[in-house]
């Protein structure tokens, strides 16, 4: 009996030791890596744009690991595929945070996917880095917006067209795909143009459905609108797949950039890759980064990218730069906070400054938007953009547009003691409403 008892105690204690050992090993395995979530569509409509961002993130993580990781641990990417399906974005975000326990998530492209994951991030208190230019009118504690707000893209682009260099444009066509980003951007632009003294009859707004491919009527309407004896330009928020047929029709109907330039906000190197750009030389795009920017940082980035993706023809684009900035900011903030705990990192993020690819530094502002330069580029025959104008300094992202009546009194500041994403300066209360 005694022997038995001792055997049992021995067995039990051995079991306990083994179990605790096992747990320690497991805990050690979990401690060894920091998981980073990547939430980009790898199938469906948006795969065309988002797959590249997934690859860019994998490259950045690999490079960071080669530099020795973060806080002495290796980074581990967790890639999920929300398949261009908006509700699935929320589900996958939940999976990343609850099941995989990621320290931060880099992802989303369309505004609707971002809106669908917002509740998940605030409920589970994690961090989302959103890399795409968007319509503004939002500032969330758990989201860092590394893409451009309207004042970092749309407004400077219109200013350029109004300037003498841009052709002193007097008449405007606002052409967009029918969803939240173009509609809000055009609302801001319309208000801005009217504030600048443009008459209502000199503005034409038109929307087309997603993936629209028959542009004949629209292009001839642009031609017609442009023959009123005033210099006319098109500001295009046409999204994704619809751009190629749009530009093909422009080229075929002989609309030259010298006569009616098209300024696009959603057309980058990636979109031009499917297009013969010779008839489009001179049409414009406004971004915060072009692949053609001539800086040592950018040269290295492009070389690294080509090496990583094993294809010399793959282009780089603005949202990739946004991830580059966002990821480096997160790394710096984690180092500063000494932990990956999202709460601490969120506070540490504000004020973090990292080099961007256009030869300067980008800083995270208290409204969770960053500072960046605005570049205007003209399409070249080789499918690249050539910068024709650049803002003299960095532009700070303005989340609540000053040109919309509903949001002009709102500001955002996530530092204590204010800690509010929509503070109304007129009423002095947190919780004003935006236009969405």
């Amino acid at each position, binding site marked *: 009996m005694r022997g038995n008892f001792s055997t049992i105690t021995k067995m039990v204690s051995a079991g306990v030791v083994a179990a605790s050992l096992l747990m320690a090993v497991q805990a050690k395995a979990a401690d060894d890596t920091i998981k980073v979530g990547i939430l980009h569509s790898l199938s469906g*409509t948006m795969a065309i744009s988002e797959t590249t961002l997934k690859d860019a993130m994998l490259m950045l993580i690999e490079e960071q690991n080669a530099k020795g990781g973060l806080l002495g641990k290796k980074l581990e990417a967790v890639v999920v595929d929300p398949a261009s399906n908006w509700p699935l974005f929320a589900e996958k975000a939940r999976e990343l945070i609850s099941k995989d326990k990621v320290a931060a998530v880099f992802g989303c492209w369309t505004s609707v996917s971002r809106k669908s994951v917002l509740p998940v991030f605030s409920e589970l208190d994690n961090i989302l880095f959103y890399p795409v230019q968007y319509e503004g009118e939002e500032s969330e504690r758990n989201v860092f917006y590394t893409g451009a707000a309207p004042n970092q893209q749309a407004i400077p682009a219109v200013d350029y067209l109004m300037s003498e260099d*841009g052709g002193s444009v007097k008449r405007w066509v606002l052409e967009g795909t029918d969803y939240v980003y173009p509609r809000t951007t055009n609302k801001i632009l319309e208000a801005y143009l009217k504030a600048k003294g443009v008459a209502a009859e000199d503005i034409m707004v*038109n929307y*087309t459905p997603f993936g629209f491919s028959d542009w004949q009527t629209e292009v001839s309407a642009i031609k017609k609108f442009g023959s009123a*004896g*005033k210099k006319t330009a098109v500001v295009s928020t046409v999204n994704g797949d619809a751009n*190629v*047929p749009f530009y093909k029709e422009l080229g075929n109907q002989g609309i030259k950039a010298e006569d009616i330039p098209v300024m696009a906000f959603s057309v980058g190197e990636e979109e031009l890759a499917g297009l013969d750009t010779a008839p489009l030389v001179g049409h414009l795009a406004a971004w915060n980064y072009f692949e053609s920017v001539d800086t040592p940082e950018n040269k290295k980035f492009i070389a690294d990218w080509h090496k990583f993706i094993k294809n010399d023809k793959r282009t780089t684009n603005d949202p990739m730069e946004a991830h580059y900035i966002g990821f480096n900011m997160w790394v710096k903030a984690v180092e500063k906070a000494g932990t990956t705990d999202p709460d601490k990192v969120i506070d540490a993020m504000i004020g973090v400054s990292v080099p961007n690819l256009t030869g300067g530094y980008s800083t995270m502002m208290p409204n969770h938007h960053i500072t960046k330069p605005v570049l205007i580029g003209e399409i070249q025959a080789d499918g690249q953009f050539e910068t024709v104008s650049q803002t003299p300094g960095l532009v700070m992202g303005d989340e609540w547009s000053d040109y919309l009546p509903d949001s002009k009194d709102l500001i955002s500041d996530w530092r204590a003691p204010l800690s509010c994403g929509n503070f109304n300066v007129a009423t002095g209360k947190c919780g004003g409403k935006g236009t969405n």
Partner: protein
Amino acid sequence: MVLLRAIGLTLLFLLANLLPANASEADLRAIIAKFATATNFSATEAVVRELAATGDPLVERPLAALAEGSLYVRRADSLVFVGKEGGDSVELLDPLSGEKSGEAAKGDITKIKVNNTLRRVIRDALGTLTLRAKDPAVRIAAAATMFKTPDAANIEPLDAAIAAETDAKVKALFEQARAASVLVSDRSEADKLAAIALIGVRGDRDALSLLTSVEANSQGAVKDAATAAIGTINSTLAFWDAGQNIWYGISLGSVLLLAAIGLAITFGVMGVINMAHGEMVMLGAYTTFVVQEVIRSSFPGLFDWSLVIALPLAFLVAALVGLAIERGVIRFLYGRPLETLLATWGVSLILQQAVRTIFGPTNQEVGNPSWMSGSFDVGQLAITWNRLWILVFSLCVFALLLYVMKRTPWGLQMRAVTANRRMAASMGIKTPWVDALTFALGSGIAGIAGVALSQIDNVSPNLGRGYIIDSFMVVVFGGVGNLWGTLVGAFSLGIVNKFLEPYAGAVLGKIVVLVLIILFIQKRPRGLFALKGRAVEA
């Protein structure tokens, strides 16, 4: 001695003759050299204006090169060259003579930047310089430029050019360009009224644009004449607008027809709800892409033939995939429409993802052969070549298919199986094979539609998605099982869509068309041209 002296004299004489020319060329070179020190667009513009002011036809080469973005400065010695790109190095040509004068690596030279404003200035300058060009097409282009950018200073050179012009058509254009310049000058009212009359006859959008600005900037008789001319132009343009809507409608209809015609076989004739139809179109487009890639790398001379070469290949690829789908999946599901729908939907996702994995998710570039680029004018109507060819092509495919169905034994068997499967089987027709080949034919036709659609749309894995709903709409509207119904359905939907679009906008237009179709189907559930007979009940 005498001889020597004679030679000396001749030389001197020659030199004396040559010297002025050299001097002016040296002047030009001195101006061109200033491009190297121009650091911003306005400085470059000043140099362009200075060059243009010389009026020397020699400056055409450097100016045209600058507009194209092929004027470079060599970093080492700040000399300006026209560059011809070839691989890693750039061939340097003398900016005036065009002779080859060396090569440089891309890093050793800087491109002189241009923007739209500069391109416009250059275009205007070249317009004046090329008024006397040998090629009438160049003179016509010059007249068009000068019409668009009227300037009082243009009147004199235009007067001279009109006097020297022999081609009646070019002369008329010159006169219009002169009239445009008169309108912005301070010539007498009578001159201006005559000019307005001349421009009113032209009657296009450029004329309208010019007259609108004249109307806004003048008073009295000139203003009234401009207003009257604008009225006339507007009423003719309204007529052409209607014509334009019809043409756009026909063109959209031809695209719909192409997209739907394969489905008219697989869904219309066979009754298979084929959700993978769009992916067959996509496979055809990717075949075109692969063919063009091979041609670009191995036989660049054949590029204009790439589409013709791609047609049979696209047919084969799509037909083979279609055959595999029929044999592998669909034949087990005949008579179970719901399962067929889900299975073919699954197949479509697999095909999309396969293409995405092989070719990558981004758009692939499919070039337009030269005979499919650009447009020509019929009156005030611009007809683009690619749309015209697609219309012709879709009608050819339709005619071919009709012939196969109505005039060949295979078509007869196909129709027999559709009309009454069991009776056809007892007459000795191998119905499973007919099914397989019919499905392959429908898929193959979708494949060649993909060749044509690659010319106007993105070549991406999502290509098919955009056409599947429209295709079903056309087939259901036209009447299931009837090829003529598909033809009429496609063109009427196209035209209705294009007449609605200018008023309702593209988004609302599409909704209105959908609502109309739903109402129509309520009234005639079998579409425009319903099949009659027992087959319908089966």
